[in-house]
């Protein structure tokens, strides 16, 4: 076979040399497939259909955002930036974007820090009501935010925090924390405690050992929790609508809703606002998707 190969390739090598040569790799016709692997079309066809269903609404949004008002074209040409200019400049989306970014980033930081502390306590300490506390965290997920609206409104009003982005950040953080703590505690349990003990033996304090040994290993979990907190607070509408009663404090989701009137809607502006709202989330997911998948799958199975 080797000789035949050599001849075929026209190498002109002597037979002995050809015999001494290491056996060549088998000829590959495309990618080899094991018998239990399904044909490619069975993978790509459903994925393709799913992608069409997922992406068509986004295409529709992009189309409405960039085509001129009154156009019925199904392709984004001729293209116009009038809708983006309108929402960004006339409808205060520049300000809403900035406010949403402040809320999103602060919620991310607050949620991650508190969840880290809470998760560490749950993973490393035993205390009497630990199971009850875990149960309470889980149960808190069943309470819709709308149910807490009036009590929260009262609390923030008495703290003189109505009309402050701080009220939204605190409310978002509080509602993000239960799931985040549960996830982070799962990650921390996954890190052998002996690593920390070794650091203590070497003279580290508990905090130093945590920072130097445990924290670097939690990166996927922190990214998962942080991104989840950011995206949720970025998209959340209710708290911003209820706690903020000044136009210059509003966030993107509230701004988007003001583009829908009682009897009329500017679809071009609404689509342009939708694109602006989607961009940060898409960027976040594009950069962290690898960590996000690792993070959620790892945290999900550890209890």
């Amino acid at each position: 076979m080797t000789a035949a190969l050599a001849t075929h390739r026209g190498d002109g090598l002597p037979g002995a040399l050809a015999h001494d040569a290491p056996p060549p790799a088998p000829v590959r016709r495309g990618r080899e497939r094991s018998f239990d692997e399904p044909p490619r079309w069975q993978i790509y066809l459903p994925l393709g259909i799913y992608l069409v269903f997922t992406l068509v609404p986004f295409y529709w949004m992009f189309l409405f955002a960039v085509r001129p008002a009154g156009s019925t074209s199904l392709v984004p040409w001729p293209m116009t930036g009038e809708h983006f200019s309108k929402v960004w400049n006339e409808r205060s989306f520049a300000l809403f974007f900035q406010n949403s970014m402040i809320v999103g980033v602060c919620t991310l930081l607050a949620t991650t820090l508190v969840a880290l502390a809470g998760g560490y306590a749950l993973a490393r300490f035993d205390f009497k009501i630990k199971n009850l506390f875990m149960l309470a965290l889980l149960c808190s997920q069943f309470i819709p935010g709308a149910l807490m609206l009036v009590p929260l409104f009262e609390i923030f009003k008495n703290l003189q925090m109505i009309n402050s982005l701080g009220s939204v950040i605190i409310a978002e953080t509080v509602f993000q924390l239960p799931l985040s703590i549960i996830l982070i505690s799962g990650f921390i349990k996954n890190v052998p405690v002996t690593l920390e003990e070794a650091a203590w033996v070497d003279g580290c304090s508990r905090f130093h050992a945590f920072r130097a040994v445990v924290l670097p290993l939690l990166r996927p979990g922190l990214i998962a929790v942080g991104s989840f907190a950011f995206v949720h607070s970025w998209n959340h509408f209710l708290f911003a609508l209820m706690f903020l009663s000044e136009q210059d404090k509003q966030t993107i989701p509230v701004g988007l809703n003001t583009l829908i009137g009682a009897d009329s809607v500017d679809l071009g502006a609404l689509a342009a606002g939708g694109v602006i709202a989607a961009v940060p989330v898409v960027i976040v997911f594009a950069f962290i998707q690898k960590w996000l998948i690792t993070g959620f799958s790892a945290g999900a199975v550890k209890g």
Partner: protein
Amino acid sequence: MKNSKTYRGRTVATVSVAAVLALTATACGDDGSGGSGTEGSGKGEITFWDNNGGPRTAVWTEIIKDFEAKNPDIKVKYVPIPIADVQSKYDTAIAGGGLPDVGGVGTAYLSNMVSQEALEPVGDRIKDSALNGKLVEAMVESVKDAGGRGEEIYSVPTSANNGALWYRTDLFEAAGLDTPDTWAKFYEAADKLTDADNNKFGFTIRGGAGSIAPAIDAAYGQSGITDFWDGDRTTLNDPKNVAALEKYTALFKKTTPAADVNNDFTKMVAQWDTGTIGMLSHNLGSYQDHLKALGKDKFAGIPNPIGDGGTRVQVSNPVDGLGLFKSSENKTAAWKFIEFAASHASNSKWNESAGAIPANTEAARDPWISATEPTALAAKSLTDGSTKIVELPYYLPDWNNISKADNEPEFQKLLLGKVTAKAFLDKLAGELNAAQAEWKERGNG
């Protein structure tokens, strides 16, 4: 590894629990309506919540600028509230506090706010102001009815909308069809303009959010019944209304797109503006959208079709207005703003921008009205005696629940053939009869 609780840990836990309890306890404070407020100095800052924030922001900004130029001692803080969430925003503020001085209030949720004692009666203020005798009487009556407190009025009407039948003049002309000004012509056009295989339909029906009022409108419009109540019972499930609704909903999928079952007004207007659908039943508010999408030569808007009896019957449309909140600490300044916003110039400016019918009688005679054909026709039909109005019971505190969350899914079932028109109207009528009885038991009516 196990760690016992430390003293510091217990302290932190105690402080945390105490803080939570203290914060929660604050939830037992005042009712948020803020008591009776005060007349105030007539100077300083007042807050105004726009109940249709966004689409009307530009015109309100202009009116506020004019007001502040005329009243340099008063500053108006403008807060746009998305229309879909305005009622929940008001409800939260009523329960938790933080109501504005002035707010946009539609008749659809006026009674709910009046029953929570959030609004100040404004009848006496109107009498003593420049607005006395300059508000369209029908709108004043509508606002009084919606408030549900007899002759007292709880908001100053600013505008009314009206149902319109929008139709594509280019498609009608090509098909050789007449203007659909009677129900018979409407059904004929819906049928002739439909070519489902080529994605062409004669009509688009509202099957999603907000579907109940148009359905009731179509039923009364065809049946010719002009009163919503016959004693203490509604005429809604009268056999004539049942037959009319059956005929109307039979259009679904026959001369309308199948996706109409989920149509709220945004989808309905969008597909009419961008497609090849012959007719759309929506109010005057979407005029600017049609104009932008189709240009002025391809469509027209007319009042609802005339029934077989020769009379145009339509249901009452919500009237928009401005409410003065009881909790305001500066009612004098707040009232000045309301008076200014409802005055001739401001009211005309606002309604021209919205394509609605002004509540100010002087504004209602301005030239822009006759220049905008659909608005002019609507205004004419409401004032020349050719139209009978069926007054919907907006005054019932349960009206919104009954006409939205409770029965919109039922209307979808009706479109899909899962319930009959009779069963649908019987259910709706039963709920309205019960709500009316409860309302009367409380000493109203």
